[in-house]
């Protein structure tokens, strides 16, 4: 990404903040309804220690939930690809299960799993593992049949074929799934905290709302967004490192086609 790429959205953002600041001042909007950006910034500075504490909790929940989703999702995807029986037995159920709104069953999960970090991790996991499975299945299946024929003519077994051909071929799809999953994982952790928590950014947000401290509420939302963006960027950077050969990262494409 060059200055050319990220300057337009940045300028748009700055313009929006300026309009917001002016609108609040000119229209005399009460602070408890909509605070001005400067007020939110001041709250962030003043309460940084409080926010950092709760951010750390939420980040742990997100990372653990995401790690669980990877650790469970990728092996399930492999099982689906390698075993027709498993595919027929669980794939339709898995797809069907996605019609259950996970946010609706979150209270139940929290009720079962008790207090502390784990129930939030569980919600983050449940909400984020599905895209990993789907994209990994698609990726592992995207190997050309000729390539698999060649692998057999080279005398390679399933293990070596997986390591040298199948898994690397699937990586672009897997990363597409990971990017969706890490974003959903943030949502999951917050939903978990909304239902029952005594710490975390979701808790901080609810507390601020309860006392109509809108500035702090907005500050929490901004930190939360930053966490989401940071997670996404981390996965994206890892992807660029691991699969620089993939079409989406080639420099001639990044430079634009104009």
């Amino acid at each position, binding site marked *: 990404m060059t200055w050319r790429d990220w300057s337009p959205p940045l300028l748009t953002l700055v313009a929006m903040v300026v309009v917001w600041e002016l609108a609040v001042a000119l229209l005399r909007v009460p602070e408890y309804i909509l605070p001005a950006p400067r007020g939110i910034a001041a709250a962030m500075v003043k309460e940084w220690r409080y926010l950092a504490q709760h951010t750390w909790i939420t980040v742990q929940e997100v990372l653990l939930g995401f790690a669980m989703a990877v650790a469970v999702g990728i092996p399930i995807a492999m099982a689906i690809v390698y075993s027709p029986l498993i595919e027929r037995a669980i794939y339709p159920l898995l797809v069907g299960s996605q019609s259950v709104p996970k946010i609706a069953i979150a209270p139940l999960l929290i009720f079962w799993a008790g207090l502390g970090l784990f129930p939030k991790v569980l919600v983050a996991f449940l909400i984020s593992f599905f895209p990993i499975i789907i994209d990994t299945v698609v990726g592992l299946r995207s190997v*050309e049949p*000729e*390539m698999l*024929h*060649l*692998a*057999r*003519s*080279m*005398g*390679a077994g399933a293990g*070596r*074929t997986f390591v*040298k*051909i199948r898994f*690397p*071929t699937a990586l672009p799809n897997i990363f597409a799934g990971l990017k969706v999953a890490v974003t959903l994982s943030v949502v999951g952790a917050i939903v978990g905290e909304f239902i029952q928590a005594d710490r975390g950014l979701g808790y901080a947000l609810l507390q601020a709302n309860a006392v109509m401290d809108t500035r702090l509420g907005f500050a929490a939302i901004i930190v939360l967004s930053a966490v989401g963006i940071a997670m996404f960027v981390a996965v994206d950077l890892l992807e660029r490192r691991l*699969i620089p*050969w*993939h*079409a989406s990262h*080639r420099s001639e494409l990044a430079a634009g086609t104009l």
Partner: protein
Amino acid sequence: MLNGPKFVEVSDLVRVFPTPEGPVRALDGVSFDVRRGEFLSVVGPSGCGKSTLAMLIAGLLRPTSGVITVDGRAVDRPQTDLGIVFQNAVLLAWRTALDNVLLQLEMRGIDPRSYRDRAWELLRSVGLEGFERRLPHELSGGMRQRVAICRALIHDPPLLLMDEPFGALDALTRDQMTLDIQGICARGGKTVLFITHSITEAVFLSDRVIVMTPRPGRIDSVVEVELPRPRRLAVRELPAFAGYVRGIRDRFMAQGVLRDIEEAPAP
């Protein structure tokens, strides 16, 4: 060359594919053999089972009935003592040209380092000097196919199976590749089974050409090409060459695969 010992023997080969419209006989009673060191082409329209034939000889498909032997051994599992080139290069996008060639050895559990020099040499021999470290997306279609050919040759197999290897290339690249293949096969003393739908290509490269009929795939005739080697591109303008091409084309006309216009337009 035609008098060498039999290397590949195919007898009474039948392969039936189940389809929703009922079983399709892709190959129906096909018998022939390939002599050691021979360049044999199989030419025919789509649907004559010629790709199926290559897959069966490679042991990647099982025949419905019939027997195939390679070098005296029955083919009952995927064969590893051969090189295969498909219509698409099927290179791994994250590996350089060199590393794609060396994949052949890594997949066999052989240390590729001892083959590096040979891989460089092979790539150079097909005009890829200076492109060894390029990724597939940085190469043209013809270059990618050359890498695939090097990958099929790096382990020096006695048998080369090529399934329409030039099918996706432009006409000029095809001409060059045809010459290159002739050179490679002449040097290496390889036995080659070359699947194509181009009559000219088949005649140019082959010692013998098998003409197939479609649906069901059967052998229509076998043509021996007695043109001196090495053959230059200009050999295609010789009357003898035209005679072979016409002979094969007439077979396709007789089958109804090709239909000429009713009569020549007035000059």
